[in-house]
């Protein structure tokens, strides 16, 4: 009987325990967390904005570099192609075109054929 009574009493006391604190969790949040969390969150957002700016600058810079690189490459390629051809053309013009002025139209094909054959043999 005594054991049952004390069991019942312990259970009754435990079931009715209430633990209260001076400050509610909302008050603690407002005092200690609200500012910190908001400040950290806004910092994070501004960091994201900076990263976005950095990326766009990087992309623009890389595009400019790529365009410059292509222009330079194209220029070099043009020079390599144009210069040797221009030299040959001048030599060709001096000898062949002047001679061809004194040849009649009907004989022009034969002249060119023989000129090309001669050039090939000489080379």
């Amino acid at each position, binding site marked *: 009987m005594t054991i049952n009574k004390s069991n019942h009493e312990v259970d009754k006391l435990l079931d009715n325990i*209430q*633990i209260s604190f*001076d*400050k509610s*969790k909302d008050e603690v949040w407002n005092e*200690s967390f609200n500012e910190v*969390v908001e400040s950290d*969150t806004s910092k994070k957002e501004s960091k994201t904005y900076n990263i976005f700016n950095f990326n766009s600058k990087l992309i623009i810079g890389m595009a400019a570099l790529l365009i410059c690189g292509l222009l330079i490459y194209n220029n070099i390629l043009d020079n390599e192609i144009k210069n040797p051809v221009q030299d040959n053309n001048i030599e060709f013009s001096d000898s062949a075109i002047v001679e061809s002025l004194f040849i009649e139209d009907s004989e022009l094909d034969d002249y060119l054929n023989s000129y090309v054959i001669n050039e090939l043999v000489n080379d």
Partner: protein
Amino acid sequence: MGSEEFKSLYDKYFDSIRRYIYYRSGDKELSNDLAQETFMQIWKKKFKITDEGLKNLIYKIANQMFLNFIKQKKNHENLLKNINFNVEYNNDQISEERRNKFNLALSKLNEKQRSVLLMKKIDGYTNKEIGVYLNISIKAVEKRMTQAIKNLKNQIK
């Protein structure tokens, strides 16, 4: 972890963590401070784990906070022995004398027994949950619970 997610976590667990530290320390101010510190750590570390995993982690952090605090104190053994556990009762039929006697009995329990008992009776956790949160086996939970109730009965005879 975003601010909304953190707020939701705080709303869910702050009170139970604060109470848990109180079960162990019997000091409401300390419980408030250490619970705040626990949640501040969680916010700063930005943990990305599931809700249930996070709950375990919160208890582990709170536990470590409490142990670190106790270790810093010179007479930490006496600090845990001489606590003044003072809770309220929401039943007018319980006399002032019974309340005081029961509070004294709760104060005399060792902090491990008291934590397990009150986590079950006040927070409504199962033995398995208590075992997970305190990192002890279910058998250890049951043993502490039995000893706690036995000691309380002896105290209030």
